[in-house]
């Protein structure tokens, strides 16, 4: 069974204070690792997909990286509008191909950026 663990559970940053979020995963075969952002009262919003170790993706102040066991989401010089819960999810290889679409999520990291 796929497992995802995110740390820390919560992170308080000052505006401009860069930091990293960790996502450790266990999966029999990785199809993809996904990062989502979730604002209070809303559904998760897609950020990135990573497929293989060594891959990196960037979007504004966010950069996601992937190794064979974990992924990091780096937040560079964050602003208050980056405050949100960041969710990591994996898609594992399944015997039934269609079932491989299933996303297994971690518990998320709640990020608060203070001005």
């Amino acid at each position, binding site marked *: 069974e796929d497992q995802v663990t995110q740390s820390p559970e919560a992170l308080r940053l000052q505006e401009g204070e860069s930091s990293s979020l960790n996502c450790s995963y266990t999966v029999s075969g990785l199809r993809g690792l996904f990062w989502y952002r979730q604002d209070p009262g809303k*559904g998760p919003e*897609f950020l990135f997909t990573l497929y293989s170790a060594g891959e990196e993706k960037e979007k504004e102040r966010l950069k996601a990286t992937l190794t064979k066991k974990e992924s990091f989401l780096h937040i560079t010089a964050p602003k208050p509008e980056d405050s949100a819960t960041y969710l990591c999810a994996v898609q594992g290889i399944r015997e039934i191909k*269609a*079932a491989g*679409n299933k996303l297994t*999520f971690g518990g998320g990291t709640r990020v608060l950026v203070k001005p």
Partner: protein
Amino acid sequence: EAGVAQSPRYKIIEKRQSVAFWCNPISGHATLYWYQQILGQGPKLLIQFQNNGVVDDSQLPKDRFSAERLKGVDSTLKIQPAKLEDSAVYLCASSYANLNTEAFFGQGTRLTVV
């Protein structure tokens, strides 16, 4: 492009009552998911449809939860009877048929069971 639509946004019911949630996925998306998100936790998959067939319902409490996706488009999730521990946000998501494609989520329905 219209997103995933869900209704209602909020629902409060008493325990042992029944409730139903509705989801309209993004047009052309063959895969539809229902997730349960308890406060402070990540979403947990309840059921996955590929067109109108069930692909994965291994974590669906089948004694009280049911879901259907008629004609491979809209879907409904029902709880009967509800328990206090069913209080959560129920998220619907959809994705294109191919693997390795991201899922797009609706706003969710916040259910409170009292």
